[in-house]
């Protein structure tokens, strides 16, 4: 574990833990509010933004944030205006962003698959800076605080949006806010996990946690823990086998999901009855 003596790896490890916690938490909302298409779309809009940053030589985090925020702010209102399902709008945004991402990458002044371009696509351990860590801590604390403050409303919307509306909860701002939050979390996760696989971290921990428990209050704690375990294990796997960190994290989280489905106590109970 000589690696951990270096600040660069310490930063990546701490960053991975925070990203895992955040993505695991947000993932539960994404899965339960049926915003899965948003997860794909936001990860690819952040990817397109980062690719633009590389192409015009400015901080990819900044452009990823701008792209994510703009996409997030547009999806909900456009779906409402067009009277189309959110999933349909996000699918269109997804293809547009992927097209833009590859155009921006081909416009990059760097030759071939340079390290910066590769890190945008696959993620990189060396990309996490002290500044990124500060932002991640602020984002994580803010997300936790907002989840605590609006837990009641989020809890009801995750059960059934229409019933929550019938009970007098104004669900629209919460859905829009969640879309926005997904965009921001994805943009911050991009450096470590990469644009292609970041959505795996949104869905896999949440889907795994839902296999084990019947209580949403416990699931919301378990999912971030699985997210953090996926990131830490993927991080060490990447170091040991010299493979892209994003791919390793996606592989580990998928393996955890496969094990969760296989050994799910929910399924066992259902077989008995």
């Amino acid at each position, binding site marked *: 574990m000589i690696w951990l003596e270096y600040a660069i790896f310490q930063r990546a490890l701490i960053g991975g833990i925070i990203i895992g916690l955040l993505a695991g938490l947000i993932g539960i909302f994404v899965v339960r509010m049926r915003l899965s298409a948003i997860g794909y779309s936001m990860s690819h809009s952040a990817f397109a933004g980062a690719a633009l940053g590389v192409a015009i030589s400015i901080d990819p985090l900044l452009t990823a944030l701008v792209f994510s925020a703009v996409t997030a702010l547009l999806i909900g209102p456009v779906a409402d205006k067009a*009277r189309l399902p959110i999933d349909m709008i996000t699918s269109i945004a997804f293809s547009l962003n992927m097209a833009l991402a590859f155009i921006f990458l081909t416009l990059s002044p760097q030759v071939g698959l340079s390290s910066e371009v590769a890190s945008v696509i696959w993620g990189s351990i060396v990309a996490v800076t002290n500044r990124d860590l500060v932002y991640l801590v602020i984002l994580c604390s803010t997300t936790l605080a907002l989840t605590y*403050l*609006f837990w*009641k*409303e989020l*809890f*009801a919307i995750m*059960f*059934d949006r*229409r*019933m*929550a*509306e*019938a*009970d*007098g*909860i*104004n669900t629209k701002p919460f859905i829009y806010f969640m879309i926005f939050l997904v965009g921001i979390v994805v943009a911050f996760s991009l450096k470590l996990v990469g644009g292609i696989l970041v959505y795996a971290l949104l869905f896999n921990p949440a889907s795994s946690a*839902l296999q084990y*428990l*019947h*209580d*949403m209050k416990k*699931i919301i704690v378990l999912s971030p823990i699985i997210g953090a375990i996926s990131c830490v294990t993927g991080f060490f796997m990447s170091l040991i086998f010299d493979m892209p960190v994003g791919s390793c994290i996606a592989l580990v989280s998928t393996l955890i999901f496969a094990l969760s489905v296989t050994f799910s106590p*929910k399924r066992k109970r*259902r077989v008995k009855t």
Partner: protein
Amino acid sequence: MAPIIELENVSTVYEGERRPAIKNINLTLEEGELAYIIGPNAAGKTTLLETINGLLPIFEGRVSVFNLDVEKYGREIRCQIGYVPQDFMVDPGEPYTALDVVLMGRYGKIGVLRRTSREDKERAIEAMRLLGVEELANRPIGKLSGGQQQKVMIARALAKEPRIFLLDEPFSNLDPESRDKISALIDQIRRERNITTIIVTHDIGQISDSCHRVVVMNGGRIIADGKPSEILKDIREFLPKEYWWSSL
């Protein structure tokens, strides 16, 4: 008595459809009134409830509840309405307990940034006790039978302590004994608290003795509205034979 629910020439169109689901509806209900809405499938009964609840956009006309425009004050109005949707069945893997679901009925009333209090929990448990599902409070909602889930949804509406009940086929999954018991309970609470109540049913046999009005719908329109004795006597005139024959 003051009108609580007023619909004037109301038409509602579902998204993506051209034909209105309900057309030119005029209906006024007073405080404490109990009305049954009957009619065959696709008559517009559920649409009417969702229009009163402000869950559907109004294409034409005006809906006011407590003298407030539903389109403007929908959220405030819904906080005062105990709504039981039709055939609300939950997936077996749903990670919510029955108590969670009943307590949620009070969330709109509690308001944003406020936590649920001990009193909220007591009201939810009391509603479950009245419905006979108190012992199921900590069971996952998806693991309950259809009838038990329906009782939980009625408990949710009761726990809200509403001024209006909108109940869409609330007894469809219940056995006759439970149906009579819960129907009597709803009626008792309605009388004690003067709650305006609309119950949708396709079964004429479910109309309780204390019903004030029967509204008959067909093809998205109200085709008859009056006292139960008058309406049920002439039901054969209003609705197709298959309907009243199966309901008798």
